[in-house]
Every structure is written in C-alpha cells, then in structure tokens.
C-alpha cells in the first residue's frame, strides 16, 4: 500500500472528503446516543443547542474556546518546527502561578498597566518552563516528548505544594486555593454578567500575530524550514538550534497566556482544577487545524462547542458527557485522514 500524490485535487475531493469526515463523526455520535438509550437526533440537536442555541450558550462556547486557542497556538507553533511540545499544561500553570503572584497586591499599578505587565511576566514564565527541555534537546539530544510530558506532572505537584503551603489562601477555609486577584488584575468582561472576558479578544489577536509571524517574518520562515527539513536548513546556514529555542519561547509563552487568561479573566484565583487538560486538548485543536494559526481559532471553537454542548445535552438527555471526548477524537481522526486524502490517493499495490 502506498500514497500517490495528486497535484490538483478536484472540487469533489476538496469538499466531499471533509464533508464525509463530518458525516462519519455525526454517525458515530448517533450510534453512541443509541447505545445510551437516547434518540440520536434529539441528542445531536441538544448538543448543537447547548453549544450555540442561545446568547448564553454561544458566549459560554467562546469562553471555553479561549484557553484552547492559546494552547492550540502553542502546540501549532512548536509542531511547525517539529518541536514536540506536549507540555502546554505545565506552561499554562506557570502562567497561572505568575498571574497570582503579581496580581494579589505585589505590584501597585493601575489596571491598564498591571495587566500587560502580568501577561508578559506570565509569558516569560511559560517560556522558561519550555526552555529547559528544548536546551536538553538541542544540546544533548534528549527527547522533548518525554521531558515536556513529564514536566506536566512535576508542575501539577508543584502547584499542589504551593496551594497547600506558601500560596494558600488564609481565608480559604482550608481549601487548597490561592488568594483572589485584586480588582485591578482582573480582565474585564466583554458582556456584563456573562462569563466572556477580554481574554477571548487577546486569543484572537494572538492567533493573528502568530499567523503574521509565520508568514511574514524571517523567524517564521526559519521555523518552517527547520520543521520541514532540518538538514537542508542547517546546510543553508539557518541556526537550527537557535530557531528551536526561539520557537520554544514563543510556544511556552502562548501556553502561559492560557493560564493568565483563565485566572485573570474567569476564575480569579488558582486552584488545582484550573485546567481540565487544556494543554492536551490543545494538541487536538492544533492537529485539527493542520497547525494553521487561524485554523486554530476555528478548531478551538468546534472543540469547545462540542464540550459545552455535550455538558448541556447530558443534563437534559442523560447521555454521558464522555460523548464529547469521543466526538472530538473521531472528528480529529476522520478529518486529518480526509485532508490527507484530498492531496493523495491510496494505491493498494
């Protein structure tokens, strides 16, 4: 079996295959709903309604998409250079820790100044978390998949220590949580009373910025060259190690913004359940977007919509929310396969 490239795919191929992937995803969801004893059409309808059926639902989806855009961008940036950053979760928490450190009265600044300072400091922290693994990779050839993945657990335990120790809220009735951020360190809501905050706008801005970096700057060009063919890049004089480090700093910084935006925009303090795996879901988001930074926004909205919709559907129809995990996984697998097959056909012999 081998793949034969297609130079100019037909319109049928370009639109038919992704549509088939979507249909397959819906089919799988329907079967699961049947298996849970519910009406598949009603279930899908409820998911759709829960994700985008009302102003409240839509804003909730946008709010849930915000951290996923950041982590998705972080992964997309790194994967472009074939730097396998599986540690967006750790970088997210690093950003969250710094946000609490600086946002609980340490800096007497007005909000307009304080927020950018915190955001930059958070990015720096996230970047530093990824700096170790990337230096180990470029200097000693240590596999960054292992180091970044294991760093997630180290970071989670470190957060646990902080919340039980030095960063524990004295007014928290014994719960492991940090003190609340001061008012000046909170990201304002876009719509009063609803959970959507300016972090979402920041995420969109970040996606555009990453797109500009990748297509218009020398760093973006270098990153793509290193990712596509490191040997040719090295031969041509591109400093491969330095490009890897710069890419890692950007990636870690973007992931940390997820932590900043969740704490400063939504939660107001740091707890151990700040992220239900946003770092890992970011990998799905980035892959689904084929690592395109603008595509990351769309795929984050899709994934967030499925999760928010499934939550709401679950309450109404009694089908477990795990259907959301299976839906996103199916969508990822079928969509990646479909997009691959628009540009190549399979020959069995």
């Amino acid at each position: 079996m081998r793949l034969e490239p297609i130079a100019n795919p037909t319109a049928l191929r370009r639109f038919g295959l992704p549509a088939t992937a979507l249909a397959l995803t819906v089919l799988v969801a329907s079967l699961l709903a049947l298996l849970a004893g519910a009406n598949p059409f009603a279930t899908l309808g409820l998911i759709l309604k829960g994700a985008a059926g009302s102003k409240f639902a839509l804003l909730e989806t946008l709010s849930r998409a915000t951290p996923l855009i950041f982590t998705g961008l972080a992964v997309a940036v790194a994967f472009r250079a074939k730097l396998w950053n599986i540690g967006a979760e750790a970088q997210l928490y690093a950003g969250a820790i710094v946000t609490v450190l600086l946002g609980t009265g340490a800096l007497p600044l007005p909000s307009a100044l304080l927020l950018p300072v915190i955001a930059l400091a958070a990015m720096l922290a996230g970047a530093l978390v990824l700096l170790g693994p990337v230096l180990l990779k470029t200097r000693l050839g240590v596999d960054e998949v292992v180091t970044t993945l294991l760093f997630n657990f180290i970071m989670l335990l470190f957060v646990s220590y902080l919340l039980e120790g030095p960063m524990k809220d004295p007014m928290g009735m014994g719960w492991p949580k940090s003190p609340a951020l001061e008012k000046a360190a909170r990201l304002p809501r876009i719509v009063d009373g609803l959970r959507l905050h300016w972090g979402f706008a920041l995420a969109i801005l970040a996606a555009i910025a990453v797109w500009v970096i990748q297509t218009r700057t020398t760093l973006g060009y270098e990153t793509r060259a290193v990712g596509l063919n490191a040997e040719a890049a090295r031969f041509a004089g591109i400093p491969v190690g330095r490009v890897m480090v710069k890419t890692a700093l950007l990636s870690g910084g973007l992931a940390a913004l997820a932590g900043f935006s969740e704490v400063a925009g939504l939660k107001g303090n740091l707890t151990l359940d700040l992220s239900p795996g946003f770092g890992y879901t970011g990998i799905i988001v980035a892959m689904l977007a084929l690592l395109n930074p603008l595509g990351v926004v769309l795929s984050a909205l899709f994934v967030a919509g499925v999760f928010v919709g499934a939550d709401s559907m679950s309450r109404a129809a009694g089908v477990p929310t795990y259907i959301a995990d299976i839906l996103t996984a199916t969508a990822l697998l079928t969509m990646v396969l479909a997009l691959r097959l628009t540009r190549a056909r399979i020959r069995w012999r």
Partner: protein
Amino acid sequence: MAGGEGAEVVLRLDGITKRFGALLANDAISFELRKGEVVALLGENGAGKTTLMNILFGHYTADAGTVEVFGRRLPPGHPRAALAAGVGMVHQHFTLADNMTVLENILLGTGSLLSPRLDTGAARAKVAKLSADFGLAVHPDARVGALSVGERQRVEILKALYRDARILILDEPTAVLTPQETAALFETLRKAVELGLSVIFISHKLNEVMAISSRVLVLRHGRLAGEVATADTDRHRLAEMMVGAEITAPKLAERDPGAPLLTLRRVTTARRGNAPGLAGIDLTLRAGQITGLAGVSGNGQAALADLIGGLDEPASGTMDLTPPHHGDWSPRAALAAGIARIPEDRHRTGTVADFSLTENAVLESYEAAPYSRKGWMDWAAAEGFARKIIDTYDVRCPGPSARIRLLSGGNMQKLILGRALEAGPKIILANQPVRGLDIGAVTFVHGQLIAARDRGAAVLLISEDLDEIMALSDSIHVIYEGRLSPAFPRGTKTPAELGIWMAGQGFDGGADAA
C-alpha cells in the same frame, strides 16, 4: 563464447508495461535473453531500467505483460519465484550483514529455519568451487565488515551463484569500483558466460557497455529505443540512442592558473561513523581553475565538502582564504567568504521539498536585504529572485510558487546552481553536481561550471565518475582514506593510472594501510 543467435532463450519479457500515476515507467517492453550472452541494458536515470528489473524480479507487478524464465511463466509479484527459477540479482547497494562472515552471509536464508545448525562442510566446498570457477577470490571466514567494496560485490555474486542462479542481473555494478576492480568483475562475467550463464548488465557508462556486452538494449523514457549488436555500434551512436539527440562533449580552453583563493595545510578532521575524516591534506584552489577530486565513494569526500562548505572545522592544520577569514567557521561564514555550495544530495540537503521555488531560492540569503529587512520577509523581492533564476537557468516549472518537490532532478539542480552562482561566488564547491541527471541537464551544469571558471572562480569538482573528472578538470587530486594525492595536471595521467591511486597505491604506505 557460447551465446548468440540460435542459442536457447533463457528469459523472455513480453510487453511489460508499468504506470506510476501519470508516468509511464515501462511501455510495452519485450526482449529475449539467450544462454551464454551478456546483454547490456543502457539508459539514463529515469529511463525505466530499475523498474523493469524490479518487475522481472517480482518486487513490482506489471500492469501488463509477462515474464518467462526457461520457458515457464513467472507468477507476478513473487520474488521467491524468480529466485527459485534461477534468477540472481546483485543490487547497487549491497544487502550483506557486516557482522557476519562471508560464508554465513552466503548461507543466510538458504537453510531450513528448523535445522539447529548449518551444514557448513558441504557449503564451504561449494563456495570454494564457485570461487575458483568464476575467479571470485574472497576468504570464506573473513568478516564482511572488514572487506573492501570490490570484495563485498564478489560476495553478492557468490550469494547468487550459490543459489544456482543461471541468470545474473547486475544493477550499476561498477558505480562503486575502481577501474582495476571493474576489470576483475568483467573477467568474472566472461567466465560466467563461458560456463553457460546469462548476464543482464545495467549501466549508463558507455565504455563499460562496449567492453563487456554482446548486445545492447537502449531504454529511453520507458521505451525500448533500440537494440544493437555491440560489434555493430560505437560509444557515440549509443549515446545518441540513449539521449535521442546529438551530444557534445564539454570544452575546456587553456587557462593559466590564477592566485590561490583557498589553501589547506596539513588539515585533519574527525572521523565520522564509518567514513574517514581528512588525514593531513594539502590542497590549493586557484582562481580560474577546476580542481577535480577523484576517488571511490566514502573515502573522505564528504569530510572535505563539509569542511569547505562550513559544516565542519579542521581538528588540526590550517585553512586559509583570500582575503583571510576571522571568527567561527559556519555555513554562513562560508557563504560570506564567497563560497558557493552545490551539495551532494539535492533532495535532502539542497532543498526543502515542501517549500516553493521562491522559498528555496532564498534559503541561503533570506537574512539580508532585499529579501528581508529587520526580520520582515519581502516575498515580492524573493519571488523576483526566483523568477530571475528560473529565466536565466532555464528551470522548467509551473511557476515560482510551485513546490520544488514537483520538479525533476535536473530542474531542481538548476535552481540550486542558480542560487549558488547568482551570488557571484569566488569559490564553487560542486559535490556530485550531475549525479542522476539526464544528459541535457549534465551538459548545462558542466557548461555553467566552465563559464564560472572562465570568469575567474575556483571550482572544486567532487565526483565518482572518472570520465567527468578527466573531462572537466585543470588538475586532479585522488582522495583515498582521507588522504590526498599530489595534484596531477590535466592530461598527465591515464584513467588506469588514476585507478591505481584510487585503490590506495602510491600514497606513503598506502597499500599496507588498505
């Protein structure tokens, strides 16, 4: 010779057709091989030789056509059937286990999986007899890893003979041999046909085809372009059949050597895996000269190319440039010093396959104006540069935004050549610049290198093709085990004399060290 008209037909290909997507790799090819003859299969890279042999050997299945061996049809797609029918293949890249002995390699895969030990006594006797009959001297208990390339090839042939092959297929067997080793191989092939075997000799080297074959089949663009008795033709006519057009040899006008632009003194570099580093070499590249570096592949050519190209530094000794270079030695430093590099592997090192022509064109120069300013790319300027290369160097492509993966090897090489030469280099490092190219592209690349020399550039031409080296070089060095022969001015050495150096004789203590 036993072969010729009227002898028994041992192999018959009938209407073999194979299509890869839009490419017709083999188009209704039919021919017969008779007992006791050497048939040469001649054709440029991409003419369909290897595809045809892979079909014969069962690695590919043909879309149409049949293969008959000794009058029996071979089932398509079964390599074992070809082996069992008596077809043996010696590949260009050897398939031997380095850590096993010659005898073990020959026996590998012949014994039953269930028998606890090999009956080496009988096998040893058979191998000894084959060695004597065919003139394949090699010690059965030597470890393959310690053998020379020529000896390894003998083991490959013995492997096929041990399995009672009556038809031997050799795919570009001389690409890795010195002229002397080639002569020994031909002696073996002559003995084989005397003993009633038949040989298919795949090559694109005309003088070898003339020397060994009794009949020549010429493949061009997947078609059988001609079939002639070797006695009725000559090199020139074969070349024209191969290319389908008249060809002219490169011409080199006399030119006095200019000032030295790069001088290596007693330079050594570190060993790299199996390949030797440089072992204290002296080399001077002069303006307006093409210096040819001959040698069997893997004797330190890569080390020298990496050193001059900026990917490696001398471990000891000095490298002096005119004007002198200071600071770290890197690809960028080499480029800044006016060294243009044409890498050995254009797919892996020369280009980024999924980048457009534009993106590939500025791979070495993107960091400077006009292609970028303060970290911002100017894609319009980059595309202008790509268009200039496409026009000046006749790169056939859909346009500057096409992915370079879609280009043929020749057009890819023209882009690399253009990228290197447009910078106005003083030194040109051309490592295997025409390997795998068709004759049209070869002529073009050679013409450009000669033009650069005539403009006053110093060219270092690294090639495993002695004919190419001798045609183009003002002076020739031979590299062997990381050491460099003295410079031989143009026309002072015959191919056979250079072959002796390529085998390691003539170097101080060279023969012993080999």
